[in-house]
């Protein structure tokens, strides 16, 4: 079955092609069948491959479809590489992807561009699979850019509104900055090591570079640039909140479950390179920590239900980066998976809420919806518990592992751990703030609404609820990828640390309860202090990163562009024209028409020529 691995990207691609070529002329049921069916089929194939892979003792499998381009020593191919890591990734992508597609068949049913939506979605899944299955960095880059493109297309899906177009372009351009850094990284790797095949690269890097070599640091820094862009980490996180302009299932699939984790995947895939550059690896951890705190604080202040979830996504990916930074590779991938479950669940549930409330995004205009929207309420409850790492939900296991690993590294690890714990506290607050505000308390308007969930929308929610609750018990087969044959090391820490890590999310939830449910503490009171107002405004704007970019990059560029709209060089050549024209005018003035004048000038010329002839 493994030799059918090429079917994985091909099936969604075929779905995309058939939808794109028919161009919306198919009936909606057929579109749904092709759109969701192709992903479903891909998931089946992936599942069969997984069974065989696990039965065969987790042996690495490589399948080459054809050589892409062969120029001298540079010959990347359309080659798929299957190991534990790519297996987990492809199962998440096809599995969660299929659930979201299924949900979308109901959610998007009224949209006139139904077919266009599914064609983009299928293309996205194809590109994402290409990304995780690639055995060389060029093919990975193809998938990398491909998902970026689909993300752009889907954010700008409702193109009539220029704001959506702006958000889409912002997402594409900001991630492109990271992509360019990554591309330069590829050039550098090829120049230094002569190949871009990932496994060969890792072997060559290990044998040629000492730990901490400048070249290893440079390469891993450049790759980190790419990862930071795609995974919306500091300083390139600004695009993700705006990306919520797209339809909600897209936020679930691309901006929560799969694409944004591509950066995590990239670092995990090239972890040997990062191990060779410990300073960069530590930087990864700090980037993750800074991002998760920043996003956590910001999430507490947002009103838009999807923006809250977006910031929580940034924050959770921050945890994954933190894990990568402290060398907890498998824990990070584990958190990636559990996050995919519960964040997809939260987004889809948010979609149901928004859908039922006529595209209302502001959580303070909702309230008391737990009776009206029971499925959404259940989903949110479970999803938020997992997100807040409530004990024995899926999020608890993965986050626990990351924080323990951070604590175990010692040195700066304790600070990283402490920051992570603070982040967990924030997570507890903002996730339950959302739950309490939307589903409890007084109801605002929308009294007569019924929950709009058909079979196709309810089923994925139920499955994801199950996975969010129980996903922590899944064992992912990535140990052989990361530990290079060594046994998995257990982190032994004191019970106090364990206790803190269990208690902190609960405290966060409790604080949230006091503020937003019981009313024992009041936000208004808190906001009456000037200092907290400023802090609120600062957090609300996403730590003013947008303004920073606007003043630092966008405005100077726009100013420069506007200044030189007419191309300086054109003016240069026009000045040549002007000079020759005025010189011509000058010469024309000597053309008086008077014979005497001509004679005099001729005589003067003659004398001058003679003088030259005689005296030189």
């Amino acid at each position, binding site marked *: 079955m493994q030799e059918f691995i090429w079917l994985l990207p091909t099936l969604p691609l075929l779905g995309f092609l058939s939808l794109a070529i028919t161009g919306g002329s198919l009936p909606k049921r057929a579109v749904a069948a092709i759109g969701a069916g192709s992903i479903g089929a891909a998931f089946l194939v992936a599942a069969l491959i997984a069974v065989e892979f696990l039965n065969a003792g987790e042996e690495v499998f490589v399948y080459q479809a054809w050589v892409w381009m062969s120029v001298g020593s540079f010959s990347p191919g359309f080659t798929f590489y299957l190991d534990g890591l790519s297996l987990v990734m492809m199962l998440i992508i096809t599995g969660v992807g299929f659930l979201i597609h299924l949900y979308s068949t109901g959610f998007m049913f009224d949209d006139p561009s139904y077919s266009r939506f599914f064609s983009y979605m299928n293309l996205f899944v194809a590109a994402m699979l290409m990304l995780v299955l690639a055995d060389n960095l060029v093919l990975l880059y193809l998938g990398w850019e491909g998902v970026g493109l689909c993300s752009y297309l889907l954010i700008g899906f409702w193109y009539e509104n220029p704001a959506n177009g702006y958000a889409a372009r912002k997402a594409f351009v900001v991630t492109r900055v990271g992509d360019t850094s990554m591309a330069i990284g590829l050039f550098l790797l090829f120049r230094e090591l002569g190949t871009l095949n990932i496994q060969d690269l890792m072997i060559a890097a290990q044998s040629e570079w000492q730990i901490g070599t400048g070249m290893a640091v440079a390469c891993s820094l450049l790759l980190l640039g790419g990862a930071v862009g795609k995974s919306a980490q500091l300083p390139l996180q600004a695009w993700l909140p705006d990306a919520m302009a797209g339809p909600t299932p897209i936020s679930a699939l691309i901006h929560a479950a799969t694409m944004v984790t591509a950066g995590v995947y990239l670092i995990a895939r090239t972890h040997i390179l990062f191990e060779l550059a410990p300073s960069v690896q530590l930087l990864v951890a700090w980037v993750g920590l800074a991002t998760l705190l920043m996003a956590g604080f910001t999430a507490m202040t947002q009103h838009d239900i999807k923006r809250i979830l977006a910031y929580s996504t940034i924050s959770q990916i921050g945890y994954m980066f933190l894990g990568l930074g402290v060398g907890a590779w498998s824990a990070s991938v584990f958190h990636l998976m559990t996050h995919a479950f519960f964040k997809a669940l939260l987004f889809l549930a948010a979609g149901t809420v928004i859908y039922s409330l006529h595209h209302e995004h502001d959580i303070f205009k909702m309230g008391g919806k737990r009776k009206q929207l029971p499925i959404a309420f259940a989903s949110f409850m479970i999803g938020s518990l997992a997100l807040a790492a409530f004990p024995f939900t899926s999020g608890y296991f993965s986050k626990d592992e990351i924080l323990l690993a951070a604590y175990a590294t010692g040195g700066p690890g304790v600070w990283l751990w402490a920051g992570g714990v603070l982040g967990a506290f924030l997570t507890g607050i903002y996730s339950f703030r959302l739950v309490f505000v939307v589903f409890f308390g007084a109801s605002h308007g929308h009294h007569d609404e019924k929950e709009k969930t058909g079979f196709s929308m309810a089923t994925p929610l139920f499955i994801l609820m199950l996975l969010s609750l129980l996903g922590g018990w899944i064992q992912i087969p990535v140990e052989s990828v990361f530990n290079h044959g060594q046994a998995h090391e257990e982190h032994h820490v004191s019970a106090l640390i364990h206790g803190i890590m269990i208690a902190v999310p609960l405290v966060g939830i409790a604080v949230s309860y006091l503020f937003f449910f019981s009313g024992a503490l009041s936000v208004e009171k808190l906001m009456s202090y000037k200092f907290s107002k400023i802090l609120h405004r600062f957090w609300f704007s996403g730590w003013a990163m947008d303004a920073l970019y606007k003043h630092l990059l966008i405005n100077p560029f726009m100013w420069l562009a506007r200044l030189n709209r007419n191309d300086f060089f054109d003016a240069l050549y026009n000045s040549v024209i002007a000079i020759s024209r005025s010189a011509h005018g000058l010469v024309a003035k000597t053309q008086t028409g008077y014979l005497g004048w001509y004679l*005099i000038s001729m*005589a*003067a010329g*003659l*004398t001058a020529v*003679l*003088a030259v002839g*005689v005296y030189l």
Partner: protein
Amino acid sequence: MSLLFYLAAFVAVISTVAVILQTNVVHALIYLILSLLSVAVIFYVLGSPFAAVLEAIVYAGAIMVLFLFVIMMLNLGQHTRDQEKKWLSLKGWILPCLLAGVLLFQLVSVLSSYDQNMAPETVGVLEVSALLFGPYVLAVELASILLLAGLISAYHLAKK
């Protein structure tokens, strides 16, 4: 003989100066004829009798008569003479004379380094004609074509 040369040269220069200073056209023309004739004398002195004769007949004779005809046709009277006087202001002379002075100075300074004497023998009509209708026959043809062209264009221009 050299005395004759210097005498003729003196006459030629004086009469030429008179030509360019005259206000009466007919007088100027007479002075010009005088100048041409003295140049013809110089030609003779320098051993070119054929050229001297042609100078007298063609230049001083034919060409100047042409001028005379034209002047008569134009019938420039007293009015023109007054105008000439007005035009010949001192101011108009300064720049041309300056330029001409420079030019003459250049010419003289080049020529004065050249101190060879002229050969005394005479080159007569025979030698000139032998060359003219021998190696330079093409030049004669060209000259005839030039004259023909001059004839035709003069006829065309002077026609009403």
